[in-house]
């Protein structure tokens, strides 16, 4: 059975609220300013030493960033978990699910950040990585394979409800959802990492989050090459604002 409207709305508000908090943490976290780009360490002699010293901090910042950008995307699967779990287990299962989901992104982040540091070490100051990543991101954005990943993220599996099986299913659901999510968004998430720290970095991050949330809110489509603008969220905001203004001035 579907959750009541109240429960669904509560889940939405919590996810958006925690996401907003994470954004604030990111914006005011001074460690982020250096570590995420890795630029400050490019002068180090050994890339292995650089990675060893800075990767854990960068990964931690990456996790914060993933939570800030992705939590609103998890509203629908968490609503699914709530409608498929005993009330006493709902929060626990949601937490396990988010942990599984975040673990997949964290592993991906570790790979991406390592490659970023390697690039900074090998070709410091080059805009080549930005150019190549930008081109791959555009091709991937319109590809049928990306659509396939987006579609799979809509297939919410049946979940066990009792004991350890419920925990296991919530975790696997998190892994699975994380996998589809990484598959659709890996390159677009990588792109902001290449930009030097500053206002543009955050603006691009926000824009990327906006696109990714929009894409996941769209209905599944036949996988084919197509323009995918990711503007559903904008359509919602526009329509809802228009409706509310219409009520005010009626």
């Amino acid at each position: 059975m579907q959750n009541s409207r109240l429960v669904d709305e509560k889940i939405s508000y919590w996810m958006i609220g925690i996401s907003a908090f994470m954004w604030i943490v990111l914006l005011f976290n001074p460690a982020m300013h250096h570590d995420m780009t890795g630029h400050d360490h490019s002068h180090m002699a050994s890339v292995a030493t650089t990675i060893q010293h800075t990767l854990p901090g960068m990964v931690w910042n990456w996790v914060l960033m993933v939570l800030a950008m992705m939590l609103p995307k998890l509203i629908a699967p968490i609503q699914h978990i709530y409608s498929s779990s005993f009330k006493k287990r709902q929060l626990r299962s949601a937490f396990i699910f988010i942990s599984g989901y975040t673990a997949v992104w964290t592993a991906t982040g570790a790979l991406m950040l390592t490659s970023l540091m390697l690039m900074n070490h090998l070709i410091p100051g080059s805009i080549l990585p930005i150019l190549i990543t930008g081109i791959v991101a555009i091709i991937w954005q319109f590809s049928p394979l990306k659509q396939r990943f987006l579609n799979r993220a809509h297939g919410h599996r049946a979940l066990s409800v009792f004991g350890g099986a419920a925990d296991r299913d919530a975790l696997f659901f998190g892994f699975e959802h994380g996998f589809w999510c990484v598959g659709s968004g890996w390159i677009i998430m990588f792109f902001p990492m290449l930009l030097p720290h500053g206002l543009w970095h955050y603006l691009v991050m926000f824009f990327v989050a906006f696109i990714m949330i929009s894409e996941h809110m769209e209905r599944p489509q036949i996988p084919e090459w197509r323009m995918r603008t990711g503007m559903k969220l904008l359509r919602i905001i526009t329509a809802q604002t228009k409706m509310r203004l219409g009520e005010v001035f009626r």
Partner: protein
Amino acid sequence: MATYTRKNAWNNGGDFNNTDLLWYAKGVQAMQAKSLDDENSWWFFAAIHGEYINAGYPDSVKWGTIPAPTAVPTSPLPDSGTQKKYWNQCQHQSWFFPPWHRGYLIAIEAQVRAEVKNLGGPDDWALPYWNYFGPDDQNKIPPAFTATQLPDGDPNPLFVTARYGPNNDGNIYVNTSQVNQKCQGNNIYTGSNSDTPAPGYGGPVTGFHHGQGDSGNLESNPHNGVHTQVGGGTSVHGGLMSYPGTAALDPIFYLHHSNIDRLWASWNDKGNTNPTDNNWLKGPGATGEQEFFMPMPDGTSWNFTPEEVDDMSDLDYQYEDLSTVTAVPNTLAMRLNKLGAGSPELFNQNIMARGKNSELLGANDGSLKLGGSGLNTKVKLDSGLKKNVTEKLMRASVSDIPDKVYLELKNVTGQLDANMLTVSVNGTVAGYISLFGLLGASDKDGHHGGAGLNFTLDITDIVDDLHLSNALDTDALDVSIFPSNMPGSESITIGRINIFREEQE
């Protein structure tokens, strides 16, 4: 007095002596003569509901493999922009189910009427309805749809080969012991109360995140059941009516939906109200989804919202007869009386309890394969929650109304839509479920992302009976499910069987 009156298809014997049906046939014939890419063609309109031309569906239902008649074209295709704007719009498992189909009917009716007028017919022609709940033999398909020829000797465009019936023998009727109009006793569009099982008469709220919603009660039964029973079919030849992507190719589709629309109009006529939420009134555009568009005979595109179609009289339409279920029982008074908490006075009061919070009460262990021989399984109940339900049943009163209980089949996937499931709990039939829409919902690249369909049955009455016979003191309920049509190696998967309780206030 409205300009257009939709009348009973069984008038004048339901054959071509009923001039509404004769002109319908001629209008359909003219529309079928047009090409697939013509926005005024029969084929284009069928694709507005749904089509299996583009996607990789099984041969049994692909448009190119449908046995003639009707000979269904698969080319020339309209450009992709036109397809995107008009095709595959049908709204199911959504609170937009009634208004979208109403707009769709008005649009095709305008197309048929334009053809009828061109052929010298009446300019107030309106689509008849097939009231399968009518007296005598009206549960049978009107004879105009089974004749192979029109009175002038032309092939009858209302006849199609791929219409197999509930027993797959070509005998087309609606089994009214399984398909019923109990939903007409509901009194809220979305939500639940004593007289209205969840998710409500018209369907669940369709929010920003769409997905595997449940069908509304009007959609579940009778709508889905009629589709399945009329279409029938096997894994080799699918009945057109059995699948959303072929259903509107069969001319009986529109008479079925005319009746569904009549039931909605009748429901409103009894004083029941439609949603006043702007997210319903303004249609899916309010939640960032595609708006409703219909091509009209004058070449324009009609962009409509639910609020523009929620009253038939505003649209200059009426039905010849709005009668459906006459007596709506005082469900809550009957329930309390049965539980020993009632009194004769209760039946004279308009008592009602609203469904509040629902909560999972139990579930089976894993996914299940349902083959031709059916299945039996135990659905385990959480002992603490079951105790709460039992205690509430024991202290039942007007001021302390016991929970309602629902059975849910979740993540049901498979390929054979032409199926009615008979679902029983502890040996008592809980209800009948049509699998209309199963194939599309199981497609990983379809609107449900392959998650399948969910179904909910109200089993409150069965649980009350178990309580009264002291049989509820158990840690599990026995659920059995039998399909009507599962040949050979075919099977469907049921992801989970859940039981929910719902507080009443």
